[in-house]
């Protein structure tokens, strides 16, 4: 009767499910079409092989600030899962043809849903997380918004494949600031905490550092030799226990198969490592002690940022890891990939002593 449940859960007996896959029938059941149930029953009765249907990829993940809920985006849908059990709670349908990023507001009240119609338009939906209601729609990009970040509870910044970066105030239809300079689409943006800097990465292989207030380009970091796929700022204390001030640090992954660490405030490439697959996504654990890189071979590679040594390599899925998120407290990871596979990796699986 596996077909009659829209999600297939997997895990060891007696344990909580650690991963789910969208069943090929899921889209049919979503429509609540009674004929589907009848047909399923008949197909089981007569053993008809109805084949597989398309399974959209999971393209974005996000934890709520409390770490109790994981949201996953797949094409036009946002699904809410309980963490760590990965039970589906509710599903929202977006007007976006393709969702590329999900980010909760700092107060956890709102969810920014970024995406658009490929090669046509890019927007961000601002939704009330409590009831899923659409609060606002921002953006007039000419291609999908690949990355979004909250500046505060009422302001977001977007990076789009139309090469533009823009700052939007909720309730206003036009951007309050724009940054232009990338020669190809912007894939990722990151704010540098406690500074007035925003950093963008793009298909043009460059990372650019911008002044948020003036819109001026501060510097370009051009060491990558392939498209920059994602960047994440390292969460760490700015002042060490010995009282030394630390510079902000940023990690980037690229089609050139490198992971690079930067100090964007001074434009320094701190160190880098080369890995054996193309890294697509990354995240830091909550303390910034390690970073996890999701790759095109389905692996998640755990890298020590001080040495750039590979600490562990976990085969999370058999397809491309498009999104990876660290839980804000328990040290586990959520991995989203092609074929609608969502997986939880426990802390014990990730870091070997």
């Amino acid at each position, binding site marked *: 009767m596996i077909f009659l449940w829209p999600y297939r859960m997997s895990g060891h007996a007696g344990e909580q499910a650690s991963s789910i896959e969208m069943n090929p029938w899921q889209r049919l059941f979503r429509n609540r079409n009674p004929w589907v149930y009848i047909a399923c029953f008949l197909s089981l009765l007569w053993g008809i*092989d109805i084949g597989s249907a398309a399974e*959209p990829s999971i393209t974005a993940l996000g934890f709520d600030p409390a770490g109790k809920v994981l949201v996953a985006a797949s094409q036009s849908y946002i699904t809410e899962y309980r963490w760590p059990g990965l039970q589906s709670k509710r599903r929202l349908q977006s007007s976006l043809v393709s969702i590329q990023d999900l980010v909760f507001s700092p107060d956890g009240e709102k969810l920014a849903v970024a995406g658009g119609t*490929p*090669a046509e338009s890019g927007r961000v939906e601002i939704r009330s997380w409590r009831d899923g209601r659409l609060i606002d729609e921002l953006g007039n990009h000419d291609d999908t918004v690949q990355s979004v970040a909250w500046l505060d509870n009422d302001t977001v910044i977007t990076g789009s494949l139309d090469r533009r970066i823009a700052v939007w105030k909720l309730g206003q239809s036009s951007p309050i600031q724009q940054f232009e300079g990338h020669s190809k689409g912007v894939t990722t943006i990151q704010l540098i905490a406690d500074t007035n800097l925003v950093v963008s990465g793009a298909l043009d292989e460059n990372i650019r550092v911008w002044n948020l207030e003036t819109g001026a380009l501060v510097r370009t970091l051009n060491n990558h030799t392939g498209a920059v796929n994602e960047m994440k700022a390292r969460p760490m204390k700015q002042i060490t226990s010995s009282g030394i001030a630390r510079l902000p640090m940023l990690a980037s992954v690229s089609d050139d198969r490198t992971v690079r660490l930067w100090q964007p405030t001074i434009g320094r490439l701190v160190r880098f490592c080369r890995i054996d697959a193309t890294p697509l996504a990354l995240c830091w654990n909550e303390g910034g002690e390690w970073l996890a890189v999701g790759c*095109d071979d389905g692996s998640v590679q755990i890298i020590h940022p001080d040495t750039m040594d590979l600490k562990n390599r976990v085969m999370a899925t058999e397809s491309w890891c498009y999104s990876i998120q660290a839980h804000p407290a328990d040290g586990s990871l959520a991995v989203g990939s092609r074929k609608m596979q969502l997986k939880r990796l426990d802390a014990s699986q990730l870091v070997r002593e």
Partner: protein
Amino acid sequence: MFICWVLLAAVLPGKSDSLVDFDHDVMPVLTKAGCNVGACHGAAIGRGGFKLSLYGSNPAADYRTIALELKGRRVNLLEPEQSLVIMKPTEAMEHEGGVRIDPGSDSAETVIRWIREGALRSHDGSRPVFKSLEISPASVVADDFDQDVTLKAIAHFSDGSSRDVTRLTVFTPEDPGALSIDSKTADVHVRRRGRHIVIARYLRAVKAIEIIAPFSRQVSAEPVDAPDSFIDTSVNRLLKKIGIPASGQLDDEAFLRRASLDLTGRLPDGQDLRWFLADDERIRRTNLIDRLLASEAFTEYWTLKLAKLLRIHGKPGNERGAEKYHRWLEQQIAENAGYHTIAMSLLTATGDTEQVGPANFYRMVGGPREQAEFTSELFMGSRLRCANCHDHPLDHWTQDDYHGLAAIFAKVRQEPIVRVVDDGQVINPRTGKNAVARIPGERYLDDDHGALQAFARWMVSEDNPYFAKAIVNRLWKSMMGRGLVEPADDLRSTNPATHPDLLQELARDFAEHGYDLRHTLKKIATSDAYGRRSEVSGGNATGGQYYSRHLRKPLEPEVLADAISDVLEIPEIYGQYPAGSRAVKLINPQVESQTLDVLGRCAREESCETSVAAGNTGGLSLKLHLFNGPILNQRIASPKGRLSRLIAAGETNEAIVQSFYRAALSRSVSDDERKFWNEQINGSGDQRRALLEDFVWSLLTCQEFVTNH
């Protein structure tokens, strides 16, 4: 029960017996639509942020691009019709390339179905793999000029199955002005008479189809069967097939000039003519060929020809090495060493380049990739260089072949002391890793250190399908004015020989006779095809490439320079070489010489092979220099030259004209010409000398002199 089945069919995503396969179904659609051509997304940097492999040579990379990159943005699995990959080419969305796939067409449906089924790619070995493409007919003679020819393409797969892929095959005429092809039905319409080639492409397979529209139904009177010469049999058969008459045989004097220039790079002198004419008429030409092949002049001239092929030149600091190399080559020619022996020596020689001549083979180009390109063009007649960046779009060479061959040469230190080392590597850009040594198109080589020896052994073995063909095609071109395959360094199935059977037979015969250059040259020189007149006869103006008449060949710069010197009896000065040195004997191709510069010599830093069109005798610059420059004008007037000598000896105008005709054109002056010159040269004293100088100038600038015809 029936109702249930109907219900099922209505609401379920039914599974057809055959799922759409990305490699075998979707890729051909994109290729057929022209999406992956070099001018569009197949360009090295792609177009509009979307890059495909050229002609779909790398399905794995294309699958990544289409289905996986940028979080799979180009496919919409929920609404396949809304996918970028189909909306762009159907222009449902703005597309710079316009409509490439008709909305609602089978092609569009194929792509949509593939997305609906999950946009997957099978690479686990569960699906049959494409093996080969068969086109029928492979060769056709269109008897009726207005007759359409319908082509059919069948793909064969690893499980033994076959499939009609005509609809998915791209048919491209080599000359769009000669043929038109309906891309949907594969109907070929002949617009112009002649022999035409259509290139068929399905996946990685490319095939050439020959379509002949005979010029005339009046078959040539030329006898088809020539039991003594497979050359004439092949040439005559094609002439008959294509309906082109052959020109007659040229006279003995003209044959002497042609053969002398082709085999020795020299004009025949009076002694040569006397010996030739004194011979028995029946064996006169054969004896002449034997005599020329055995001469020192043959060794000198063919050393020059091979030196150009081998690009022997002295880089600064390696002049002595280049000289050693040249001397070694000259010795090989003089001793009639087999071409395979020469090649083996070149590929495997190591040591001090000032002591070991053939070791300089690795000093003529820089770097393992350049060496791979040079070696493949030289010994295989194949342009591997395309496969540096992508699999060859018109041949079977892959990036692995190219970089695998470069990996072999990466072990050779191209230094003053050439040696084989263990640590040389090149990166294969396809894998991003060190390339694995590989014999192109054959096999990987496990033993890195012995890879060079293994490659050299394969190169000269009879298993190598390219080696003998590459050199006999060049010998043929040198003698006949046009290669059986043109360009001579571009042998591939999609650039077929005009006479495939002849090329095959020449190669077989060459190998069977110990890769003896002289043997094959004699075979060609004694054929009727070689002995034909160059003048158009019986409407065969367009049949030069089929050897219905002999093609005029411009004299090589060195040969022309020597010929001018011989006719004028004024030696040319070449740099530091002693006065009287012949240009064909110069070792350094960059020696100071304005004459050779003007005549267009090859510096040998790159390939000297060019496609020589019949009748091409140089550009405007050369003409202007010959007409007005010092190459001729100063030397004609020299008091030490032939003209001054004859005038001083009191020779008559007629005797002087005759002497120059003999020397320059290797023939007697005709009655009409004699009459003409008598009328033109009618002064005395200085005026007479000026008129005679004009006569000599006109002789040395005429087509008959500057070409071998």
